[in-house]
C-alpha cells in the first residue's frame, strides 16, 4: 500500500500548475483533497510520475457570491461548501450531506469530485440539477463548460491534457422547489441511486424541471424524459410520473446491486425527491 515514486510539486498559481501539467505530457496528476487519488496510488492502480498539488493556489479556495451566480473555487472542501451554501441553496447542502462522511468532506474538494467524474458523484447530480457550469483552465486559456456537457463517459470529464478544473458556477435560483434523495448500502457509501430535483413552480404548476441523477449510468446524468413528463404537471401528485426516469437511466451492475435493482431505486429516489419538493413549505 505504498505508491510508486513520483515527483511532487506545489505551485502557487493556476498558470504555474497548468504549465507543470503540460510539461509532464499526461504523466502528471492534480492532487487536491486526495480522497480518491491517494488510495488509487496506494493500490498502484495509477502511478503518476508527478503530483501537482493545487492546495497552495489561493484563488481556488474562494467562494464568491455575485448577484446572479455563486462561484465555488475548485479547492473549496465539500464541508465548506455545505456550510456556506446551506442558507442560499439548501439543495446543495442537503445533497452534500450524503457525500461520504464529515471527515471526508473536510478534505475532499469540489474540483476534485467534478474532475473524478464518478457516476455516483453528488456534485455531478447537483450541478446538473442546478444548471451549473464548470470553469476549466489549460494551456489554451480558460473556458466554461455546462454541467450537461462536462461528464463525457465513465470517470471521464471534459478535460484536455494540461487542463484543471478551477471552479463551479451555480446560478442563483430566484425561487425553487427542490428535493434530494439518495440510497446507499450504508450511510456515506457511494449511491446505488440518487436524485437531485429542482422545480420551478408557478401557481402550483411545474413550469421548469431539472433532475440530476447519480448512480444511474456511466456518468451523473440529467433525467430529460422525466423532466419533460414533469413540466406542466400540478406539483401535487407529480411524483406519480417518476417512473418516466426509466428511459433516462442505464445503471451498471456491481456487487452492491444488479442494474435492474438500481433501475428500481432510480424510480424510488425520483418519486421521493419530487414528493419532497411538493411537500416542502
Amino acid at each position, binding site marked *: *500500500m505504498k505508491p510508486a515514486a513520483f515527483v511532487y510539486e506545489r505551485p502557487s498559481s493556476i498558470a504555474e500548475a497548468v504549465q507543470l501539467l503540460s510539461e509532464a505530457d499526461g504523466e502528471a496528476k492534480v492532487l487536491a483533497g486526495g480522497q480518491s487519488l491517494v488510495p488509487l496510488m496506494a493500490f498502484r492502480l495509477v502511478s503518476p510520475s508527478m503530483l501537482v498539488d493545487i492546495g497552495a493556489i489561493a484563488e481556488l479556495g474562494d467562494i464568491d457570491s455575485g448577484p446572479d451566480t455563486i462561484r465555488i473555487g475548485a479547492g473549496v472542501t465539500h464541508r465548506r461548501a455545505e456550510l456556506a451554501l446551506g442558507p442560499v441553496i439548501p439543495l446543495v447542502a442537503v445533497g452534500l450531506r450524503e457525500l461520504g462522511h464529515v471527515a471526508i468532506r473536510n478534505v475532499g474538494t469540489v474540483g476534485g469530485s467534478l474532475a473524478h467524474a464518478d457516476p455516483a458523484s453528488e456534485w455531478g447530480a447537483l450541478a446538473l440539477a442546478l444548471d451549473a457550469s464548470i470553469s476549466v483552465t489549460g494551456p489554451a486559456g480558460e473556458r466554461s463548460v455546462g454541467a450537461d456537457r462536462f461528464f463525457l463517459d465513465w470517470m471521464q470529464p471534459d478535460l484536455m491534457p494540461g487542463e484543471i478544473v478551477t471552479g463551479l458556477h451555480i446560478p442563483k435560483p430566484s425561487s425553487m422547489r427542490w428535493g434530494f434523495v439518495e440510497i446507499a448500502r*450504508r450511510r456515506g457509501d457511494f449511491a446505488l441511486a440518487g436524485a437531485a430535483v429542482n422545480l420551478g413552480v408557478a401557481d402550483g404548476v411545474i413550469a421548469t424541471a431539472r433532475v440530476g441523477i447519480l448512480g444511474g449510468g456511466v456518468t451523473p446524468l440529467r433525467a430529460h424524459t422525466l423532466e419533460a413528463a414533469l413540466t406542466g404537471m400540478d406539483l401535487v401528485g407529480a411524483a406519480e410520473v417518476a417512473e418516466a426516469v426509466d428511459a433516462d437511466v442505464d445503471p451498471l451492475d456491481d456487487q452492491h446491486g444488479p442494474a435492474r435493482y438500481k433501475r*428500481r431505486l432510480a424510480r424510488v429516489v425520483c418519486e421521493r425527491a419530487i414528493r419532497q419538493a411538493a411537500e416542502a413549505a
Partner: protein
Amino acid sequence: MTYVGIPVPRTEDARLISGQGHYLADLAIPGMLEAVVVRSQDAAGELRSLDADEALSLPGVRMVMTAADLPESARAITRSFYVLTPQFVERHAVEVGGSSEPVLAAGRVCRVGEPTALIVATDRYVAEDARRLVLADVDPSPAVVDPEAALSPGSPLVDPAVPGNLHGRFDVVVGDPDRARENAEHRVSARFRIARSVGSPLENRGVAAKWVDDTLTVWSTTQIPHVLRSYLAPMLGLEEERIRVIAPDMGGSFGGGVYPEEVLVPLAAMRLGRPVRWLEERGEDLMNSRHSRDQLIDAELAFDGNGSFRSLSMRILQDCGAVNPFGITLPFNVASHARSVYRIDHFRAEGLCVLTNKTRNTPVRGAGRPEAAFVVDRLVDMAAHRLGMDPADLRLKNLIPADEMPKDMGMMYRDGNQLVYDSGDFPDQVRTALEASGYQTLRDRKPRSDRHRIGVGMSCHVEGTGLGPHEAAEVRVDTSGKIVVRCGSQPHGQSHATVLAQVCADVFGIRPDDVLVRTGDTALLPFGGGTFGSRSGVTASAVVRIASEQTRRKLEELASDVLEIAVNDLVFEGGRVFPRGVPDAGLTFAELARLAAPGPASRRPHDPGLASLNTFVPPSVTFSSGTQVAVVEVDIDTGMVEVLDVVVVDDCGTILNPMVVDGQQHGGVAHGLGNILLEEFRYDDTGQPGSVTFMDYLLPTATDVPSITVIHRSHPTPLNPLGVKGAGEGATASAPAGIANAICDALAEFGVEVTEMPISPARLLDLIDQGRR
C-alpha cells in the same frame, strides 16, 4: 470488598485510547528490513516457474525467497488444529484427511492469494516496487468454485491427494430421527445459504522476527503465542527454548490459526541475520486471512399440530477452501449447537467438508453457532407461521426446562466428551427477553411511512465455551509487595489486564491496582493456550484463581511461621497479613517477599520466592446461552433494512466484569448484524475474489448498529472454580437469526422467508416482489 462481578474500569483503556499502545507497526528494531508477499493471481494451475531476477536486481532488494529456498521441514504447515478421540470418530462416523498448507506454492497454485514468494528489502516502497517484477509462469486450470459441483463426478481436484474434493465428513444420529420425522404431523424445510464472511479487525496481521545469538524472537499478531512456538520449533529446526514468541498489542483478531507468513518471516530473518517485518495490507487481509461461515445447509424441522418439536435433520456442506487444517470443526459446531435451547430428542446432522480453490476457512467469532442459530430459529419461525402460533409461544413450548439441567444431548462434543448443557434456565431467559423488549407491544410501533414495515424477531443460542486443552498462569509476590500474574492467554482487544487482576485481587484481599498482569510472551511462562473459542474468561480466570490461591497459601505458611500464629487466625487485608484483631502486628506482602527471597537467611530455602505456576484443564466445554429480540424497519420499495433495537439476555455464568461482558455483547451483535445484512466475500466463477477492499466488503459502521440493551441472567457452571461461562462470541450467534426473523415478520404480508445470510436489499426486494404477485 471483592472485585469479581464489579464493573471495574478497564486498566487498558488509558494507554490504548491515548495512543500509547504498541502495535506491530510501531515496532522499531535497528536495521530492520521490510517484507512483502508475492501471491498467486490464479485460482488453480501449474506453477511452472517464478522469475525473480528482475526483482532481485532492484537496488535495496535483499532477498526473494521461493519454495525452492525453503528447508524440507518448513515447506508446509501440516499440523491440524484439533485432536479427535477414537471414541468420537467411531460414535459420529467421522472421516477426515490430513492437512498440508504450503508455506510457499510449489509446483501448483490452488487459490488466488496463495503466497508464492517473499521479498525482503530495505524499505516497504522498494519491496512493493519489486513485487511487481516477480513474474509467475502459471498454466491455469479450471478452478473449483461451487462446493456442490466440487462433489460431482468429474470435477477437477483441488488437491490431488483428496479424492472427490471431499476432505472430511461425519454423521450424527441422536434418537430415531427417521421415525420421528415420519410420525410428525408437520414439517418445514429449507435450503440455507450462509455466505463466506471475513473476520476483519482494525489491525491487519503482521509478523516480525530477529535472530540474535542463535535465538529467534518472533512478534506476531497471533492469538496463540505458545502454539505458534510449538509449530515453529520443528519447522525451523530449533528447540522451543531458542524461540520466543511475543504477541504485542493487537487491534482485534476474531479467529485465525497459524499462517505461512509466520514461518516465512522468521526464516528470512535467520537467513539474512537482519530483523525482518511483514505488515499485511487490508486487501491481503480480506483475501487471505480469516474467511469463515460459507455453508450450504439443507434442514428440516418436524413437529406436531400442538407445536411439539419431534425431529431436526440437516445436511451441512462446508466450503473449506483449498486446505482444511480445522477438519470438521466448523460443520460439527453447527451440528453440536443446532438444537439450541430446544428439546428435540431426535436429531440427525450429516456434515461434509468440501475443498474448493478459495482461501481456507477458519473459525471466526461464533464459528458455526451463528449458522446453527440461523437455521434452527428460521425453521422455528416457519413452523410457527405454519401453525398460526406466535413464534415466542412456540419457543416457550419447546424449551428445555430448567429442572432438566444438566441436560445430556445424546451426542459427543468435538473434544470427545459427552455433550451436556451444564447449567442455565432457558425459559427464564426467554421470558426475560420478551418482557424487557416489550415484545407484546412492539408490533404496534408505527413505521415512519406507509412504505415501511416494522417487524420483531427473536433467536436463542447455546455455545460450548472455554475449550481446553489447558491454560497456564504463574502468580508471584513481587518484592514490592504487588502481585504479578503471568498468563498464557493474552488479549487481542479483550480485557485480560483488568479482569485477571480482579480475580487475583479477591484471593489476596487487595485492590486490582495492586496486581500486575503480564501476557502475550512465551518468555513469561513455559505453557499457554491462548485466546479463542470464548475461553479466556473461563480458563484463564480459573487458572489465575488456582495459582493465586496456591501462592496465598505460601504467604500464609510463611506469615504463620514468622508470626507464630496459626494460619486460620491470619487476616489478609490491604497487602498485609496480620493476626486476627492485631493489625499492627502483621507483615506486608513486601516484607514477606523479602523473607522468602533466596539466600542464606531465606525463610523458604526449599522453595524460594513466593510463586506458583499452575495449569487448568477444563473437564469439557461449559455452555453459555442467550436470547435476543430484534426490531427492524424495512423499506418495501427498496429492500433496505434498519435495525432499530436489539435486546440481549445473556447467561455467561459468573460475571467477572459486567462492563466488559456488555462490550462483548455489543460487539457480538454488531458482528452478527454485519453477517446478516452486509458481509459477503465473493468469488467469481473463475475463483477470482471480488471483495478485497472495504468498498466492496461492507462492515457495519456506527450508523448501522442500533442501541443494544444487555440483561444478564447468570447461572454459574459447576465446571470451573469461578462458575464462569464464555461471553466472547454468543451474541454473534443469535443476532443474524433474530434480525432475519424480524425481517420476515415485517414482511409477513408478502410471505418473505429469508434463507440466506447475508440478505442484500436487492435480494430482499426480489422476495417482496414475489409476494406482491
